[in-house]
């Protein structure tokens, strides 16, 4: 049955997240970007919301609520509406923990998940992107060779969010047994921060979302035990993991796009030229209506992908559609939003240039969050 209706619980969560994102994230966003650092304690504050632990099983100390990619997509949109950099930082542990939960063996869950159910922010992350202009997640260059019972990882990763403090990395790689390429050939390995052969770079300097610390990883013959391979001998459902990440990125882009739209509207109503508000001119009014159309389109595509994940279907196609579509439209909306503000869009007093840079960064990243 086709339905766009949120559950009562989802309505409550959305409201709470919207308020939190505006009060906490939006307030701090400009200074954080200028200082290229997350506000002190923001991660512990956000940890109290239980974004990661709520959907982890009771057996590891979690809230025991059903995993809901739809609810998570709703949450990510709201958090990114406040600030995408902080939204990503705050949910980076979920990237790691949800993957362990969804694809890990019982032993892996017992070993790694309790940490995410405590009082303090537990930093962990996933390493997907590789520094190449032709990076393709379906054709990873990071490899895992079998050695004895274990594996040896080699390769390079970058744009690893929260890598400056993550205690563990889930590193995506191709095992040499896996034939060919494709999403099914993806494997994931749990790599501790202190693994021999793992080099972690300084914090990277990026175009947008400067408050979000990212690092590069160099893996030189990193030797790992057999239990480091997520899912054990079965490995993981790579297509599903990527679909989760693509859907999450799409949700973030909906949030950023909505932020731009909702900032541009009152601005255009306030700003007067030639005797009337610029919003009264069709060139501006239609730019804004197009944003409204596209924010809607983007959100429904995102929800459709999240719903496919939630009902455990193959979500590869809807997630790809959500990802590519939102990437293009988010950039366009940020671009047009800046144009509506004119010179003021270029000035750092307004947040639009921040979203413009964030959009260009976010729209090339598909692996910075999970639903």
């Amino acid at each position, binding site marked *: 049955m086709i339905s*766009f209706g949120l559950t009562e619980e989802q309505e409550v969560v959305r409201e709470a997240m919207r308020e939190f994102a505006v009060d906490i994230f939006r307030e701090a966003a400009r200074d954080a970007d200028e200082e290229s650092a997350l506000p002190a304690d923001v991660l512990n504050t956000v940890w109290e919301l239980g974004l990661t632990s709520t959907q982890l099983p009771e057996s590891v100390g979690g809230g025991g609520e059903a995993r809901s990619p739809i609810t998570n997509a709703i949450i990510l949109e709201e958090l990114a509406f406040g600030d995408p950099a902080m939204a990503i930082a705050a949910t980076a542990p979920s990237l790691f923990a949800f993957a362990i939960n969804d694809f890990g063996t019982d032993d892996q869950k017992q070993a790694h998940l309790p940490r995410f159910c405590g009082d303090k922010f537990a930093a962990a992350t996933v390493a997907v992107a590789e520094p190449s202009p032709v990076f393709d997640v379906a054709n990873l260059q990071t490899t895992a060779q079998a050695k004895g019972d274990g594996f040896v990882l080699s390769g390079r990763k970058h744009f690893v969010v929260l890598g400056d403090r993550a205690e563990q990395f889930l590193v995506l790689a191709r095992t040499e047994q896996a034939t060919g390429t494709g999403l099914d050939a993806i494997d994931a390995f749990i790599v501790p921060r202190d693994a021999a052969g793992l080099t972690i770079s300084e914090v990277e300097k990026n175009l947008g979302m400067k408050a979000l610390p990212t690092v590069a990883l160099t893996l030189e013959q990193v030797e790992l035990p057999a239990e480091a391979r997520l899912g054990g001998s079965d490995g993981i459902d790579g297509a599903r993991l990527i679909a989760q990440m693509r859907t999450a990125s799409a949700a973030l882009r909906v949030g950023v796009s909505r932020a731009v739209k909702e900032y541009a509207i009152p601005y255009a109503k306030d700003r007067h030229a030639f005797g009337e508000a610029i*919003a*009264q001119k069709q060139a501006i009014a239609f730019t804004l209506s197009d944003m409204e159309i596209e924010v809607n389109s983007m959100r429904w595509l995102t929800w459709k992908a999240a719903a496919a994940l939630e009902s455990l279907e193959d979500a590869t196609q809807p997630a790809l559609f959500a990802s590519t579509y939102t990437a293009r439209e988010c950039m366009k909306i940020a671009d047009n939003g800046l144009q509506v503000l004119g010179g003021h869009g270029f000035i750092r007093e307004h947040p639009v240039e921040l979203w413009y840079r964030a959009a260009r960064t976010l729209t090339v990243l598909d692996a910075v969050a999970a639903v």
Partner: protein
Amino acid sequence: MIDFNLSDNDKKMLDYVRTEALVARKYARYYDENEAEFPPEALDEADDYPGAWSMMAGRTSEDSGQSVIGMLITMAENWGDYSVRMRKGRGVGLGNAALGASGTEEQRTKWGGLLLSMAITEPGCGSDPSLVQTTAVLDEETNEWVLNGEKIFVTTGCRSDGVVMWATLDRSAGRAGIKSFLVEKGAPGFQVSHKEKKLGIRADDTATYVFTDCRIPRENLLGGKEEIPKAGSGGFRGVMKTFNMTRPMTAAFGLGMSKASLDFTREQLEGAGIDLSYGADVHGLSAAAAKFQSLEALQEAAELTVLHAAYLSDQGEPNNLEASISKAKGGSAVRTITQGCIELLGPMGASREHLLEKWFRDVRITDIYEGTGQIQNLIIARTILEYDRSQLS
């Protein structure tokens, strides 16, 4: 709860519609090339199909809402063929949507089974209905409305059994004076005077109507409210409410055809050995595959805006904004998609040996009738800016 899965009942209905739609498609080229002829009222091969609309009874709360399934059926029918689908005895005209949105219970019972067209546009008025010149005057002695005026671009106007038409009770009242009337073919003084020749949807006739002292019963005023609301009281919105269903439905017409275009293009590209699978990032795709997938995503996005508008209607929630969003999105998406499909197939796409070039012509009306894309943008902009017509026109 957010859900995009069809129920078994939904699927069964849509399977029926698609099977029958493919029968209609066999006739598509013939009636495109022979514009002067009307498609038959019944297709022999389709006799076994009960028609999806007659299967509406017996649906449960597990199934998609009536408006939602209506949009899906509409898309599936148009996926077969836009024009041949419109046959007598089926309430699938735009006027039927108006009847559903604004008619009284009695009117819906009496007129629901007829094919109803919708007549708004006049020689001197298109996007701005406040300029409607056709008049309706009540003859209290006979309890009849007397209609006078001319309507053009009436879709399915020749074949329809009747029409929902707009006329003004009082020109000086502007938009507030406009009412919708149900007029049956054969009413005295009602003449179908002309049939247009068009770029596309050729088998779906487009007519000109002339009303000369045309008399219709008093109860044929759609919705039954005879009083003229005060200016600014929003009374005109009652008339415009019709659009909250016809606009998503019009988008659904076009999206059925653009879906057909995508299906054909996929078949051809894959037949030529182009890999269109969904696994890879954009870097891993051929240019044709990347382009094709972006068109598919656009199709999906536009379909979802239609379903969203319909969903709100099923919930009894206002959907004025969402109806315009779906119409604007659908209208522009079908242009991009069909143009893109031809681009992908090259000269083959432009050949009349295949239906793609026909779909490309047929969908072009989507962004024009039932309010152009620009009008939809105006409505959306006014809504989000909280402007009235005097502040943004």
